[in-house]
């Protein structure tokens, strides 16, 4: 059980480089980014721990079932629908961003629309699979790719040309108040626990050991994702790059490796991570939206449900339309907006769950005298 929790935690930690988190933070590196990082470790860990502890009072239940016990359906359905759409958008952002990245770095000759179509259709198919299958694949992808991630991190820290001076320069700008957007971007990596809002259904009990690992891993990954680009690209130049981490990884070279440029290794594993992340988020989004639909839409046709396909297909089609009509600049603005809304709604969800857990706990205590 514990290990699955950390897989979902890690996938969000690792996906932040695609989610423009380093980019947003580094763009305002002199205007409070460092403070945002420090605050994010506190806020993110607190949210994660409160959520996990509260959810452990509802064994085997997902958010829709828990809400059903406390809220009237007038309130419940809009909230769940909203959350489902938020999850869907998270996946869409990653898929569009990653199709841009692939088109730019891996296969510039392929038509971007075709690539996006390939991603969208694979993820649409993948997100209609069983949750248990997605959890197993999460384990496989994370366990197989984590050594490569560790290798890339190691490789970048021991670079001869790693400029620690640039990093020290940044420490002069520590005590600046960060904006809400910066804080939202910096807390994003901690948000992996939120997937248990639905995947809690697949586990008998949400008992997570070593919760202290969350701030520790979080601090390490968050600071790495800022420090490494600065050290490799320089503190002033780092702001000029759009896909900061990929450009940073492209400065690394494996002299004796079968693959010479580290960036290919990086892209290779991040295709897997991105597809996995999109599959998870779209699966949760689809399930959430399905929970809000009236019962008569959940008819089965020869043992197969058509509605998950329709919902996932709608999300995929919207993503495709969004992908072909947006550009890099518009993309970053919408990511910023999404991140800000996300932090607010995440705090809301965590508070709601905590209140419900407290309520349930008190009720039980009253009943037992």
């Amino acid at each position, binding site marked *: 059980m514990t290990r699955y929790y950390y897989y979902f935690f890690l996938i969000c930690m690792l996906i932040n480089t695609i989610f423009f988190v380093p980019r947003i933070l580094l763009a305002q590196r002199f205007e409070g980014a460092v403070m945002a990082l420090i605050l994010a470790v506190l806020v993110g860990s607190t949210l994660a721990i409160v959520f996990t502890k509260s959810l452990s009072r509802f064994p085997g239940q997902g958010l829709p079932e828990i809400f059903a016990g406390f809220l009237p359906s007038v309130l419940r359905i809009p909230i769940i629908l909203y959350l489902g759409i938020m999850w869907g958008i998270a996946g869409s952002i990653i898929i569009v961003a990653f199709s841009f990245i692939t088109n730019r770095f891996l296969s510039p000759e392929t038509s971007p629309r075709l690539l996006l179509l390939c991603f969208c259709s*694979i993820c649409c198919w*993948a997100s209609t699979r069983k949750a248990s299958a997605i959890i*197993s694949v999460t384990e496989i992808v994370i366990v197989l790719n984590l050594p490569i991630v560790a290798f890339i991190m190691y490789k970048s820290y021991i670079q001869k040309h790693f400029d620690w001076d640039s990093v020290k320069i940044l420490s002069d700008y520590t005590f600046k108040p960060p904006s809400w957007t910066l804080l939202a971007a910096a807390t994003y990596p901690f948000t992996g626990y939120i997937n248990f809002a639905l995947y809690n259904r697949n586990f008998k009990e949400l008992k997570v050991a070593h919760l202290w690992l969350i701030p520790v891993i979080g601090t390490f990954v968050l600071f790495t994702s800022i420090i490494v680009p600065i050290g490799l690209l320089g503190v002033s130049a780092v702001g000029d790059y759009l896909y900061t981490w990929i450009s940073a990884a492209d400065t690394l070279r494996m002299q004796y490796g079968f*693959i010479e440029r580290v960036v290919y290794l990086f892209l290779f594993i991040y295709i897997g991570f991105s597809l996995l992340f999109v599959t998870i988020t779209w699966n949760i989004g689809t399930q959430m939206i399905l929970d809000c639909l009236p019962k008569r839409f959940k008819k089965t046709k020869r043992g197969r449900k058509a509605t998950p396909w329709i919902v996932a297909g709608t999300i995929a089609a919207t993503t495709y339309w969004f992908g072909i009509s947006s550009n890099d600049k518009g993309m970053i603005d919408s990511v910023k907006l999404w991140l800000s809304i996300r932090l607010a709604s995440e705090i809301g969800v965590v508070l709601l769950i905590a209140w419900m857990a407290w309520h349930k706990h008190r009720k039980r205590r009253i009943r037992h005298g």
Partner: protein
Amino acid sequence: MSIADTVDVLKQSADFQRELLDNGRFKIELFYFATLCDKLVIKKDITHPYLHTADPSDFHDMLSAALSCTKLNAEDDPMSSLLCGYVLIRLDNIYYSLEAATSINNEPLEASSEMTLQGPQSAFSENIKTNLMIARKRYPYPTLIAEQLTLGKVSRTQAYLLYDKEKCDPDVLRRAHQMLNQVQADTVMAVGQLEALMTKTKIRWFPTMIITERPDRVTYNLAQGKFVILLDGTPYSLVAPAVFYDFLSAMDDMYQSFIVTRSLIVMRYVALLITIALPGLYVAVVSYNPEIFRVQFALSVAGSRAAVPYPSFIEVIIMLFLIEALVEASLRLPSYIGSTATTVGGLILGQAAQMAGLVSSIMIIITSAVAISNFVVPINSMSFALRLAKYPLVLLASMFGLVGLVSGMFALSLYAANLENFGRQYFRLFTGEPAVAGYKESDSN
């Protein structure tokens, strides 16, 4: 049908015998298929005592006391038992039926499709009684239950469902019974067919039950709490519910030292990766991203492809088709010609194809690596399933390059993980199977 009607129907066959015997004191009549019955049994159990019996009532007593002999009522239909090698005896218009089936191929065969180097060498036989005996001998434990089944409307093939009552999950057994009751077919000849008949979905790719000819594997899986189906007329048995890991484990894995075994398993998974991904990787690297590898390597690939006029995916498809045809041909050919086919196909054709500029020499290496790696998979049905897995990847790689390849592998693993086997997960990293031979770790989940 009454007894007389049955005899009327059957006597049209040349091998149906109807004999009237007379020992001077009273008469009996025998009906049997000469081809199905063992003459020795008939002599020992019927005609010999008959010769020494003084009057009919003594012979009635003798038949009632005989092993596996039943008295038939007037409305009983002896058709099915006659067709299974029973002898029908008429004495004073009372019918008895006595088992005298002859058995063919009841010697254990030599293991031919799943070899081990230092493990047990014999496989199951083609006779179900012998197979059950082998299984019982290797698993002499009181909780081993054998349930008899008859499968197929026409063939009426005998089968046994074997399981350890203490270890087998009752839910799995319930599902197994349900699936076996659903079997609708005229003839059931082999366990692979039985697997197809048992599973509901028609479009299947990966096998979810192991087909094995090795008694030691059967024993091992019984101890793990799986069930086994033995089928008459085939030396193969069906083991379920299986996980993906089982298909890549050879029985040797339990007969070697720990480190050797683990290295071999790792090697098998690497081979699996090669056989699935290498053709796709070749297409992706050659046609989309030659810069991934070092410059020298990219140049040498380009140099070897200099004479080839086609895009890489056509080259891959030509070569893969040839090798698949070769594998299929050497499987069907008698072993005398088989080696000729491999020589002609592998050596001469490969060499000539490269010289003629049809394919590059690196492609020849890749084709052989793919074919050899495919043979590493110990269970045949899985090896066949994996042979197919490379084609969707080649297609995706030729359309989208490296991205397509990785996406395809992601989709493949998700497909495998989505498969369900008797309500259990089929494809996981940590299977959580019990460690009965002391080698598998168990999961604390």
